[in-house]
């Protein structure tokens, strides 16, 4: 099934610009990414993340054993469904992506960002294949759909998406205080190879490969709901 859209995207890729990707995944794109920490705020509160080294381990786990890898796989399947003009598969991937949210806050994070991303992209970066999606849409699904609709190659989309996720988490970590600006940039750079490996792994993974081991990190997002002082919505 993915053979057709992959071939199609490759033929477009030579001419497709990466500029939309830079716009969509910049911190300035109006999806409110600055408001979410995906459980990192609780991890700092609980003392699980307290310096560069523990942040690198935390983010690396989230990429390879948790939500990062799953989001990448979901992005791939949304991308392929749009390329194949397969509405039923697209709706199924989106429903699965929303249902995979382990808690209220993670659900809010993916559905609010997904909706904001789709609205902003339809307004500024419209494309014939971009779906309107009346109901809720998960963030990685929306990004995958936009990239496919603009003919942006899948591999670079995946790397950019996952690296933006890392940068957003590091930016949250800097605000939560355990690390400074300079070490933040070092943490981002040191995760480059993990991002690349996760992107490669996701590219050919089927939906049965969706899985996560980060049980306690997810439990942390439950705890975050009742955390006394907090600056993030997740």
């Amino acid at each position, binding site marked *: 099934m993915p053979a057709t859209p992959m071939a199609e995207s490759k033929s477009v890729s030579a001419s497709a610009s990466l500029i939309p990707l830079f716009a969509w995944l910049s911190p300035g794109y109006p999806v409110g990414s600055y408001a979410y920490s995906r459980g990192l705020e609780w991890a700092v509160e609980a003392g699980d993340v307290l310096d560069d080294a523990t942040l690198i381990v935390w983010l690396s786990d989230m990429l390879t054993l948790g939500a990062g890898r799953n989001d990448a796989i979901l992005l791939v399947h949304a991308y392929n469904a749009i390329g194949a003009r397969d509405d039923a598969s697209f709706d199924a991937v989106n429903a699965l992506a929303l249902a995979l949210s382990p808690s209220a806050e993670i659900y809010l994070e993916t559905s609010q960002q997904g909706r904001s991303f789709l609205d902003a992209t339809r307004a500024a970066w419209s494309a014939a294949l971009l779906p309107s999606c009346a109901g809720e849409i998960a963030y990685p699904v929306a990004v995958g759909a936009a990239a496919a609709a603009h003919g942006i190659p899948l591999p670079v989309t995946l790397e950019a998406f996952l690296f933006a996720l890392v940068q957003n988490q590091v930016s949250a970590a800097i605000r939560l205080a355990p690390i400074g600006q300079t070490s933040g940039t070092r943490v981002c750079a040191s995760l480059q190879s993990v991002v690349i490996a996760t992107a490669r792994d996701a590219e050919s993974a089927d939906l049965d490969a969706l*899985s996560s081991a980060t049980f306690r*990190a997810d439990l942390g997002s439950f705890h975050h709901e009742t955390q006394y002082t907090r600056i993030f919505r997740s």
Partner: protein
Amino acid sequence: MAIAQLSRGTMYANDWPSDNSARVPVVGRQRAVGRIAFSAQQIEGLTRPMRIAESGSMRIRLPKNASSGIDAVIVNTAGGVACGDRFDIDIEAQAGTFVTVATPAAEKIYRSDGPISELSTTLTLGEGARLDWLPQETILYDRARLSRRLDADIAETAVLSIFEAVVFGRAARHETMTEGLFIDRWRIRRGQRMAYADTLKLSGAIAELLQKKTIAGGARALATFLYIAPDAEARLEDARNLLGTVPGCQAAASAWNGLLAVRFCAVTIESLRDAASRFLVGFRAAPLPRVWLS
């Protein structure tokens, strides 16, 4: 007795002290396969069994009780799950019924020499039906390999409670799960739409993975309680109040979209049972299934 044990020891691979089934020959070992299909219907306000099918080592018991519902007990007479075994459980609670399903003991998943054991549970709930799925914990022996799936298909007005706990390694023997595989795949559909999906997967050096802060932070017993019901979100405060502090067990609740989830992460199965029992009794406003206590 001694003679029987001796002969079992020479002929069978699953020679465990507690295992009285001994029907798995070493040579040309076949997977044990077992299945239960159970369906309940409502007759004049009472829940009654409509269909019971059993095969292999799986049995379902329906002890008499005083309520209008059914308390079903699922028994695996093989005494555990050996490598490559496959067991299926299919429970249907038709419109208006109330069914509680429990198990009389922890399910033991023995060490595997390679093949993956598969457990599959399918739950179907009609309009207004209530099903409480409350098996006791699953114990994964060192080098166990288990792939488990739980599929539920429920009507909009149905009420489904699921509690599943897993322990990595036999605590009583101070066993750690150095190696193994555990896949726990849940897919819940409500009114034909995917409402909740989760796949927990730990593969390889499990004891090491459990040390990770993101995975278990050194805990060895994990559990998830999921409540899918029209009033799920309204019961969040209720649920939080029932999760008091139990030493050695972290637990918290979250509710969204007609779902309420509670996760437990504990150093020992005893502290997990302590926290979970208190929660389940309070949240269900009912005692634990009788077989949990015996």
